[in-house]
């Protein structure tokens, strides 16, 4: 597959009163042609900085970026016509109508003005096209932003939180739109916090944390490689459950939950060890099933942003990923 977008070693630092802050710390990303690629990261992890840098709005301190084979920002003017983008919240001049806004953009970008009604129809704003943008809800502004990105029939579509402010129907429409665009051969880079959506829509993902890539690949690969080593253990009826848990704990197992009829082992990288240890004590396992992780679990684990009881996590605060397992 051809890479439509490549980023390697991207660095951006900001100097402030509190010293130097690394927004991007050697970030890498590859987006293959024709894919819907999810770009995930907690608040302040560097997602928007990456997109702004890629689109020439921010100057990087170091690193290399290419879009459609052209090095950017040096050759950005040559590829800008093939890249549709919305960055962060939709920003438009409030006193213009959606139609005027898009028509002016079409004029500025040398795009056929006949595209304007077509994209307004596509995002569901046809009937409100002549209303001033300042009368729009956040979701409608979001639709307008997507329309502006689609106006030039891009080969690469970069969308930063496109579902932000959309109602459930709108989110589903957006999902369908992404799928249709990808099916038409367009490559879509999608930044979002709605991980369920990403898991449904995206072919591949990149996860960023503290300005660095912490995971990348197809959704299934990322899930598989970072899947939880948690297993659910059910014993024969009438067996002393707390006794069994104590045996495993003594051997180093982490037991995150103990229920009435089962318990889970959190670091069971070798589940056979569980059956062996319990069988030695004449305790027999009736069910031993892996607890499958979803993208949200992987995200929280990789970025260290899972909520902790009694603690208020601060933006920029990430925990180190737990390394290693039990039973290996």
């Amino acid at each position: 597959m051809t890479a439509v977008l490549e980023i390697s070693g991207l660095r951006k630092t900001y100097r402030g009163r509190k010293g130097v802050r690394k927004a991007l710390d050697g970030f890498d990303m590859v987006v293959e042609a024709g894919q819907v690629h999810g770009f995930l990261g907690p608040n302040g992890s560097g997602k928007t900085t990456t997109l702004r840098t890629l689109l020439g709005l921010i100057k990087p301190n170091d690193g290399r970026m290419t879009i459609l084979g052209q090095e950017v920002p040096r050759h950005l003017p040559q590829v800008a016509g093939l890249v549709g983008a919305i960055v962060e919240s939709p920003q438009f001049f409030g006193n213009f109508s959606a139609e005027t806004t898009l028509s002016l953009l079409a004029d500025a970008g040398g795009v056929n003005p006949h595209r304007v009604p077509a994209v307004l129809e596509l995002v569901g704003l046809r009937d409100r096209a002549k209303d001033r943008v300042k009368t729009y809800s956040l979701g409608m502004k979001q639709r307008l932003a997507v329309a502006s990105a689609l106006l030039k029939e891009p080969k690469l579509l970069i969308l930063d939180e496109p579902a932000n402010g959309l109602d459930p129907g709108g989110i589903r429409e957006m999902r369908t739109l992404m799928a249709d665009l990808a099916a038409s051969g367009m490559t879509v880079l999608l930044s979002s916090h709605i991980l369920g959506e990403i898991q449904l829509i995206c072919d591949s993902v990149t996860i960023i944390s503290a300005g660095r890539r912490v995971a990348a690949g197809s959704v299934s690969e990322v899930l598989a490689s970072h899947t939880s080593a948690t297993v659910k253990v059910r014993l024969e009826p009438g067996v002393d459950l707390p006794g069994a848990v104590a045996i495993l704990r003594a051997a180093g197992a982490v037991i995150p939950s103990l229920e009435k009829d089962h318990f889970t082992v959190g670091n069971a990288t070798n589940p056979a060890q569980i059956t062996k240890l319990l069988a030695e004590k004449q305790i027999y396992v009736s069910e031993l099933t892996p607890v499958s992780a979803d993208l949200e679990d992987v995200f929280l684990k990789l970025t260290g942003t899972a909520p902790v009881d009694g603690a208020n996590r601060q933006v920029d605060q990430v925990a180190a990923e737990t390394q290693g397992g039990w039973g290996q």
Partner: protein
Amino acid sequence: MSLYRAETRRLSKRRFTRLFVVLVLLVLGLLAAGTAYSYQKVTPAALAAAQADAERDFQEQVKFAEQEKERCVQAPAEFGGSCDELWVPVREDYRAENYMPSPFDFRESFPDMVITFAALLALVAFIIGASFVGAEWNSGGMMNLLLWRPQRLQVLATKLSALIVWLFGLTVLTGAAWTGLFWLIATFRGTTARMTPGVWQSIGLTGLRGLGLVLVAGAIGFGIASIGRHTAAALGAVLAVAVVFQFGLGVVLELAKVKFAQAYLLPYWILAWMYKSTEVIDDNAPCDFSVTTGCEQPVFTITWQLAGAVFLLVTTIIVGAAMWTIRRRDIT
């Protein structure tokens, strides 16, 4: 070219632009109406009425003077003992032209109207220029535009060009209408006599300098708002210049007895530009007394060429700074 066309459309479509154009046209219209109302043409009827008024006043005064003389003859002590010094009206003091409404003399009065027009247009050009780019920065429209045209200098320069050409068109069109309007006022409420080619040339040159003032004001407003990325930056800067530099600096310079203190104040430079020159007197210099001319203090003449060069330099610095900042700064 498409970007230039888009920016011209954007500028014309803005409600703020339209509002200020309507406002300035309204103010100009009121000024013209006020002028037309204040002046009147000299017609034979008006001349006859003025002559009658003058004669009536003269006769009343003659009658009054005779009564006073009679009183004086009866009681000279009340009039200082002599009645020879009593005032006697003379017909020459009661000229008919003093009783006639003044006509609007195009040759005499229109140059001042050109300057009024230029000052108003310059103010509006500054505000429109500042808002044109300031609102774009503030609303995020500029960022959107740069996603479409990632050539920062080209985008800002095109925006500025669109503004300057638009202001040029507005000034020329309204200037022509202004001239036509006052020609009509002079025709119907005054006189258009003595309009030689030289007078027209002089008015034309004043108009050209006025046009320059309008374009400079627009470019400076645009530049400051772009540096500050907000319309308020330009308006704030004007307020700061007015309060700190004009009033504050004026007082400080006077207190410090700086030579030619008024030469540091902007209005004198604008006056010099529009009236071809203006003189600034050094009030703090020792008096150079002469028997024939009295007290003479040193005079510094600000010529229109000097004022023009200063305006050009200031505009270049501000627009250059706007270009430099858009090239260097991150757009967040």
